[in-house]
């Protein structure tokens, strides 16, 4: 599904180059869920951005279903993103001027494959039924995060990339969101790469890796 090969990313800083990622190799099987843990600034988000094609590596490659992302042009990478990936951000990044329903189907519509039944199903499962015509600022934090997950899944992605999806939520809400996320992942058969600093969040996933000083280490649950 997703393969990272010798992925390297360096940022220049006043104190000399900072090796954020230093030869990362990683393989994610279809339907597999993987938690990527690490402290703040350990490079988790950079890795996720590279995997999503939002950024390009200095060295190494990202293969998505065997296809090299680094070799693609910007429009092709954008197409790959909207057709095969789902992204969930810590800050939700909902479109404030779109209603709940429109936000949910935004990526699906961009990808040209809106599925009304699936969207309705998602809304119901996410506990957002009946809130169709509200706007994001009229939702609670948990509701907004669930909507962001819904938006990512509505386009039926092959791979969901989530960056601290519960970082803005209290524990109870976070648990609820995570349970839902796992259930929906299983339902849709999509793979998940989740970045978090919380063991509690990483725990229930198939696999868990630690990112330290730009390198990966296997970690038990």
């Amino acid at each position: 599904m997703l393969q990272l090969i010798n992925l390297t990313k360096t940022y220049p800083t006043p104190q000399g180059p900072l090796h954020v990622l230093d030869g990362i190799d990683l393989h994610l099987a279809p339907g597999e869920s993987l938690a990527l843990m690490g402290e703040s600034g350990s490079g988790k988000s950079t890795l996720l951005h590279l995997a999503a094609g939002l950024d390009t590596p200095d060295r190494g490659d990202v293969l998505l279903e065997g296809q090299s992302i680094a070799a693609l042009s910007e429009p092709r990478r954008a197409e790959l993103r909207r057709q095969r990936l789902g992204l969930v951000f810590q800050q939700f990044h909902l479109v404030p001027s779109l209603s709940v329903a429109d936000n949910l189907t935004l990526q699906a519509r961009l990808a040209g494959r809106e599925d009304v039944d699936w969207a309705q199903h998602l809304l119901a499962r996410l506990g957002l039924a009946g809130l169709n015509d509200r706007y994001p600022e009229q939702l609670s934090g948990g509701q907004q995060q669930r909507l962001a997950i819904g938006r990512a899944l509505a386009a039926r992605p092959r791979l969901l990339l989530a960056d601290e999806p519960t970082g803005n939520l209290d524990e109870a809400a976070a648990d609820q969101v995570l349970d839902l996320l796992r259930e929906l992942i299983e339902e849709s058969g999509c793979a998940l790469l989740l970045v978090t600093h919380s063991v509690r969040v990483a725990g229930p996933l198939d696999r868990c890796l630690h990112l330290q000083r730009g390198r990966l280490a296997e970690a038990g649950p």
Partner: protein
Amino acid sequence: MMPGIGNTGLLRTTWLTLFSHYRRHPGQLAMLLLGLWVASALWSGVQAINASARDSYARAEALFSASLDSVTRRDNQPLSLEDYLALRRAGMPVSPLVEGELSLSGETTLRVIGIDPLTLPGESSLARQQSDASALRDWILPPYRARIAPEQAKAARDDPRLPPLEADPNLPPGTLVTDIGVAQRLLNVETLSRLVVAPGRALDLPPYLVRQLAAALASPGQLTDSFHLNLTAMGLLALIVGLFIVHAALGLALEQRLGMLRTLRALGVPGRTLVIALALELLAFGLLGAVLGIVSGVGLARLLLPDVAASLDALYDTDVASNLALPWYYWLGGLAVTLGGLFSAGLGMLWRASRLDILALGKAQAWRARLHRQLRLQVAVGAVLLGIAAWLGWRLGHQPAPQELALGFAMVAALLLGASLWLPSLLAGGLGLLSRRLHSRPHLQWALADLQLQLPRLQLPMMALLLALSANLGVGSMVGGFRLTFLDWLDQRLLADLYVRPSEVQHADVVAWLEGQDEVQVLLEARHAEAPLLNVEGQDTGRSLALFGITPAPVMRQSWPLLESATDREAAWQALAAGDAVFINEQLARRDGLAPGDTLRLRGPQGVVTPTIAAIYPDYGNPRGEAVLPASRLADQFAAPPGSLGVVLSPLPSRDVTRIQAALGERFGLSGDAVVDQRAVKHTATEVFERTFAITQALNALTLAVAGLALLTTLLAQAGARRAQLAPLWALGVSRRQLVGLQFGQLVSAAAGTALLAVPLGIGLAWALVSVINVAAFGWRLPLHVFPGQVAMTIVLAVVVAGLAALLPAWRLWRVPPRQLLQEFAAA
């Protein structure tokens, strides 16, 4: 998947998502459209006036008589049939023309032109006119025919005096062409106005006739170019002010949608698609704004055109249709300018969207750094522009005539733009200085610091306000100064209490009678003549000069204004009265680069006359060059017939203008145009003057209103964000009343700061108008007047405009329930 369908859906969804922003913030959309609308409306309005006038000029220039040389009597009297026949029998290919005005019922006045189609030179455009069969017979035999400009066709059809009419779109507005015999009957004359001859045909004219080359008769288009350039400049100012609003609206919409743009990119919208969607959005707004603007521009033009037509008629003696005639390219041009303006304002937005950094998603904006960078750039560009303006000003100030009108406008544009680019930095600097002094007044200090934060948003409407204010002050100073000078000049020139115009036969009797009246202090005799102007080599320039004969009586010597004289005033009058000198008007001096001490070369009936120029006098409102000499000399040297008599009454208590007027009517049958009260002349002159500047002032007021709107819309558009910034203050214990007051104070002080800059800028503009633009446009220079009242008015206006614009947002803040502020606080 099918890429085609996917892409269309992609673009459509992207576009709809982008547009959803305006659905949630209709105020921004309204502001954007408003800016486009006013920019396009004022610009299109001015262009509609210009296009319509140009159409009139084109038709006037296409008229046969415009391309033919003219033959007239030297003394400007009409010609007789015998004069004409004598020339024809001597083999000269002249054709007779009768011209005159005919009043129809109602307001319509027609310029009637009578022609003889059998002798009219053939290459003229009249030959191109289509007609039906037995046209010639119909033309010269009863019931005759007439061609008329389409504008007046309807009004004229009801007039029983006129022959059957045919509307002719090639004729200038207000023109009727018919056979010469019919024209004489309509105008009740038996004489001929002039003769025409094809250019290049040799004539051997008797001395009492003068030939005027067609090429030397300035076309109305040339004469009025400056007037229209003035209008265009006003329109351009309005366009720029409108585009400031557009720019502000687009900038705001982009700021607020940056997050959305990044999200869309993250969700897989390629950058190119995003830029295309934004461009399409601009295009849609542009089309809508342009259509709205052009439609209201045409309405505006319709409103202003009668005044413009009247001014042009009074200033340049040209007929302009007072209803609109717009060519197709006018519509296209309006659209192009609006879209061009919109895209120039939106280019920055598109550029930023295309260079969007997705990874900055959610990152805080480096506002301050960017603001400083922007301000530095603005200061640099502004400095260059101001430098250019200063250089042009120096050049134009030191350059001898003729001055370039376009360069004058370039200077004004550079001055205005440069100053407005400096405005934000000056305001920021001023605010910084102030806030340091206000350490002990935390409220005020916060208000000033906060105002600095608002500068990026406020700078554009403030720049618009600066432009409008300084234009207002500059034009106001110019008009006011002109009014002062002009009224003074009228008083000096219109010395006599009564102007009497007796016929040639009566002239001596009227003079004798008037001289016998006790009340009459002095009689000022005037005569008029025309003389061909020769160049230094003594060859005909093809131009003829108007000669004005005056009576250099002491009362006239004292008051007749002179701009420049060879030695001193008294000596100049001595030379005029006793010697062979003449005075020339400012227009002639500037146009031909003449100065006191130079000589003129004129062809008189008895040979070449070369008078010395003793002085230059101001002659406001006259499009032509003119020379003044004693009436007696004009009669001797140029065979000028007796003209009008100025009657100066003695300052006795028994003086009675109406008695003299009545007596002239009784004894000599002189009334109406033949006896004119000085007050009536002054009234007419003042009326012409007021009308000339009515349009300028109307456009000015509109521009100021637009600047106010710009401010209002900006404030409204950011009202939500402002509340979020004000909420913490409220939470810290500042009352709503204080908040409203602070906000009000912020705006008013920003506006007042702007006004302070507008004052020197406006005075600079006034200087440019009176000593560069007017000289180039009209041929006369005015002294620069600064009216303290107007300066004060400018500052008051700025404060009032800002206050009015701040009123609505302040009122809304006032009405906000505390609960909402609480929410804003939580959200912030």
